């Protein structure tokens, strides 16, 4: 029963993500989302009490999706260099397969912070994802591969770079496929962060 509800929630979030991406966050309404799923608006409210709540749940959903992928990487016995490449790879892969997810993260979560004020302060709603990035950094420094520095200066470099590329891709400016950049970008990031 619960499981079924969870699945349904996921379906709704997926539909909402697609609508946000095509129509924009503000212009998309709960009735629009309900309509796209052929649900009644009343039933929709059984799952999400408001658009704001839906918005927060989506960001947690994305964070947990990416967090899980990163955790798999973190748990492998491989070098920090290889981990760096795998993280870049998984990020771009997600951006290609589920562009609406990354799009949501970059355009909606980061630029509509007022929606995410209550109970989504700081990085709470992206905690799972950020925790894994922290572990990747911490272990990298501990084993001597990465240089010790402030967390945010490293985090900004890493995420800003990846976000920037996905943005360029979204604007159709990138001449090549995102995947074609993985090697170079992983190399650049590692070089920038490495202890040497």
């Amino acid at each position: 029963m619960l499981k079924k509800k969870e699945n349904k929630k996921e379906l709704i979030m997926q539909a909402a993500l697609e609508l946000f991406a095509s129509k924009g966050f503000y212009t998309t309404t709960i009735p629009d989302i309900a309509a796209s799923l052929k649900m009644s608006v009343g039933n929709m409210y059984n799952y999400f009490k408001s658009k704001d709540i839906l918005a927060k749940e989506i960001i947690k959903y994305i964070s947990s999706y990416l967090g899980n992928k990163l955790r798999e990487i973190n748990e492998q016995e491989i070098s920090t260099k290889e981990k760096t490449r795998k993280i870049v790879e998984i990020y771009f892969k997600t951006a290609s397969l589920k562009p609406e997810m990354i799009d949501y993260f970059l355009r909606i979560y980061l630029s509509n912070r007022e929606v995410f004020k209550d109970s989504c302060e700081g990085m709470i709603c992206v905690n799972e994802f950020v925790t894994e990035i922290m572990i990747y950094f911490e272990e990298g420094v501990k084993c001597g591969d990465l240089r010790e520095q402030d967390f945010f200066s490293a985090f900004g470099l890493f995420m800003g770079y990846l976000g920037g590329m996905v943005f360029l891709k979204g604007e159709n400016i990138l001449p090549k496929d995102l995947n074609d950049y993985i090697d170079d970008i992983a190399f650049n990031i590692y070089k920038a962060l490495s202890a040497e």
Partner: protein
Amino acid sequence: MKKTKVLWLSAIACNGNTHSFLNYPFMEQFLEDFEFIYHPVIDSKYSLEDIVSKEITCDILLIEGAISKEFKRADVSVVKIIEKYSKIVQKIVTVGTCATFGGIFRESGYENTSGLHFDQDKQLKEFQYLRDKTISVSGCPVHPEVLVNTLYAIKKSITLKLDNFLRPKEFYAYTVHNGCTRNEYFEYKVDNHRFGELEGCMFYDHGCQAPFTHGSCNKILWNEVNSKTRAGLSCMGCTEPTFPKRNLFSTKKNMAIPENLPVGVGKRVYLTLAGITKAFKIDRLEKKLIDD
């Protein structure tokens, strides 16, 4: 009841444990229940020369200070003295971190200096046959109550549960963090500690080792009034085999994440919780505790 006879033997030491012991509040009662056959400060029936040349009846051997066979007392190697008395006593207590793990004076330059059973966290073969007789009360210095009450437990033949370093769990199962007045700053990750203030937690920047140091400093307090961390000084981890680590006034961090986390707490759990609590701004903890 018969007085329990105790030999207090100092090896390579600063006598800090001796003076810490003198701070035990119920000394009168203690001296009615115990008798020192030798003590570095308190008068005894026997002189050190008697102790090393004869074999005086004794129930408990207390060792203070790091041990090396090169180090002599009254011209006799401390190892020889330990060998002699360990045979006749009922129990041996290594008092303080030097006698237990080597501590500060592990580096004093004598040949193979270590604790009785441990060289830092490495278990030693020498004296292995005495392990069942030994209880360690580490700390630099040991807390007087920890020492004295352990002696009473021996006197009363109470079987104490010991940890891997032979330390009584009743004192060393706790972390020093437990009971610090700065706990809330730790819990809610308010990480702007500055020295000289009542507020803030030294874990993030100033090297507080209490969350991964075993001991009761903040539970039974020092001199019955305070503790280092309450006063505003980081715990230096003096009860642990690793004491003294280096760069003691700053926290070892990797990409700003503390390398040593609370004992028994996984990194993922810690970071997740930290991420959540850090997101909140708690006014009471951001401002002065006693404000206008």
